[in-house]
């Protein structure tokens, strides 16, 4: 009852000076908007990186040739460039037979090749793989079928293509059963992959041709590689829990295969997608906290602005305070009234800031082409912090108001 009346006094004072109130809360508006936007940008980036890395295949270990180097992300790039030739079919077999808990082991060779079909030309990535490759990379056939082990062993010249290749070469026509010349070697299209879209590294994941490992290696890339070399081995663990053990076992099996003495460096490297994911998420989280902290400083500045105006208000309204005391207001009533005024100012700023922050986050997400991630707790947290700022920075002015001597206050002009 009493509280509601004091709240009405407080809001009455705010409404009495609309322009001044808006300007006063502007600092909080900017602070809250900035925190909401920064948090949202961080979360959006995190979600996009997560989906990108997950898009490479879950529970996946990528084994590539070449000495491993310390330094996380850059080694992935170096491995992708993978010029070494230290992996071969026997390594694949050794992993398959000696490591437990595998969902798939998929060797791959790849190269760039000129494609031609029915008068159209296209340059695309060609990969020589086994049927397990689909499992390892979480790929799905959208149309037609994948080649099987027998066809691969027989060296049949069949391919499964990505949607970009299908569109570039045949437009809307059905590519199944069509002939596709890869570096002038004729293949038959037996399937089309479901679209995966663009990766965050800017690569079109649908611009690919998958052929049987043997055929691609000997017919397309053969001139540059030894007969049984593979470029990458995708090892997929059955569960996320066994991922680390599978990575360790794979490393041990390969060291044994390659007769690497204890203490010597590996001549290959293994990349665990989960750990890459973790590392990048941790990096983004740090970055987000940093941005939000910088934004939070502007919230503090907003609080100081409120404190300043509240001090002015207490001075301006000294006589009002004296009169209220004379007609029976307790010191706590005066304290509560001014604290509520300060909190209400800050809260109004927080509400406006929340609205602007959400709009800004959606806008930036559109520009950056990532999901607009505004967590459900952003609203309550933003408003809670606004209240807190109002309370903390209103405390001193309110205390000053409540400590006034009513006689002195009434005498003030």
């Amino acid at each position, binding site marked *: 009852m009493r509280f509601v009346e004091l709240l009405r006094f407080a809001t009455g004072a705010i409404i009495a000076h609309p322009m001044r109130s808006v300007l006063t809360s502007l600092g909080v508006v900017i602070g809250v908007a900035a925190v909401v936007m920064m948090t949202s940008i961080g979360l959006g980036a995190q979600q996009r990186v997560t989906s990108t890395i997950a898009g490479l295949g879950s529970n996946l270990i990528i084994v590539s040739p070449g000495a491993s180097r310390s330094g996380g992300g850059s080694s992935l790039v170096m491995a992708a460039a993978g010029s070494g030739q230290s992996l071969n079919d026997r390594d694949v077999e050794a992993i398959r037979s000696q490591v437990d808990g595998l969902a798939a082991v998929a060797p791959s060779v790849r190269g760039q090749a000129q494609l031609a079909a029915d008068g159209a030309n296209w340059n695309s990535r060609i990969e020589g793989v086994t049927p397990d490759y689909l499992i390892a990379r979480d790929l799905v056939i959208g149309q037609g079928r994948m080649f099987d082990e027998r066809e691969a062993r027989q060296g049949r010249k069949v391919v499964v293509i990505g949607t970009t290749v299908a569109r570039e070469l045949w437009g809307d026509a059905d590519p199944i059963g069509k002939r596709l010349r890869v570096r002038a070697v004729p293949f038959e299209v037996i399937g089309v992959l479901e679209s995966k879209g663009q990766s965050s590294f800017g690569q079109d994941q649908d611009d690919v041709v998958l052929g049987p490992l043997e055929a691609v290696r000997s017919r397309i890339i053969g001139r540059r590689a030894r007969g049984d070399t593979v470029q990458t081995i995708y090892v997929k663990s059955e569960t996320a829990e066994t991922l680390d053990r599978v990575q360790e076992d794979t490393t041990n099996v390969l060291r044994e295969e390659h007769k690497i003495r204890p203490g010597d460096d590996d001549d290959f490297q293994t990349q665990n997608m989960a750990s890459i994911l973790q590392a990048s998420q941790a990096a983004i989280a740090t970055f987000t906290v940093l941005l939000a902290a910088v934004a939070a400083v502007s919230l503090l500045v907003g609080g100081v602005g409120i404190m300043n105006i509240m001090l002015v208000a207490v001075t301006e309204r000294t006589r009002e305070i*004296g009169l209220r005391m004379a007609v029976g207001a307790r010191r706590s009533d005066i304290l509560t009234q001014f604290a509520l005024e300060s909190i209400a100012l800050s809260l109004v700023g927080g509400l406006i800031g929340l609205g602007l922050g959400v709009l800004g986050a959606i806008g930036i997400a559109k520009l950056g082409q990532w999901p607009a991630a505004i967590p459900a707790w952003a609203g309550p947290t933003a408003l809670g912090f606004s209240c807190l700022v109002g309370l903390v920075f209103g405390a001193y002015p309110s205390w000053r108001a409540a400590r006034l001597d009513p006689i002195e206050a*009434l005498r003030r002009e």
Partner: protein
Amino acid sequence: MIELTDLRKVYVMGEEEVAALAGVSLFIGRGEHLAVIGPSGSGKSSLMNILGGLDRPSSGTYRFDGEDVGSFDDNDLASFRRRRIGFVFQSFQLLPRLSALQNVELPMIYAGMAPAERRVRAAELLDRVGLASRMGHRPTQLSGGQQQRVAIARALANSPDLLLADEPTGALDTQTGQEVLALFKQLNRDGLTLILVTHDLEVAAAARRQVAFRDGLIVSDQQVAA
């Protein structure tokens, strides 16, 4: 009703002590209409501040209906002012943002009265002081006399035992000053105890008892023929 015994108020100004009240003993009965007169610096304002519960005496006792007001803490004093005292000031002290009606409602809000109830009472009080047609007006839209009558209605809001008026006509012209004094007389006839602080002998003449102050002491205390 009011019993002051050897009341003193001492202010410390730097090294010096200044006695605003130097031992005042006074008895004021219920229903009295009393004027406190004296030049500025005589201690009459200090007396009013203590009587109204805005200040505490340095020594001596102040009893109000048997209660020792001098020993009250801040909250007790706030409650005392709220329930027992009505103030009327020279400069009206109306809140400029509020209408006449809202100004009159203010003491009742602090007393915790329900909105509908206090609105009715505030309207009644404004009617009583002759401002029934000005309830929605802001102070700036009212004349000085009208503003002081709003302030009087406000002072009456919580049915006080004592109405304290500090130079209530000081900011008014003679004509409206007389109207306000007539209103005070009427209120006193209706049973309200009234203390009027003034340096204006004409104003003091409206009261039935005059207490004169000089240098913090009572120099005369006389009944005036009605």
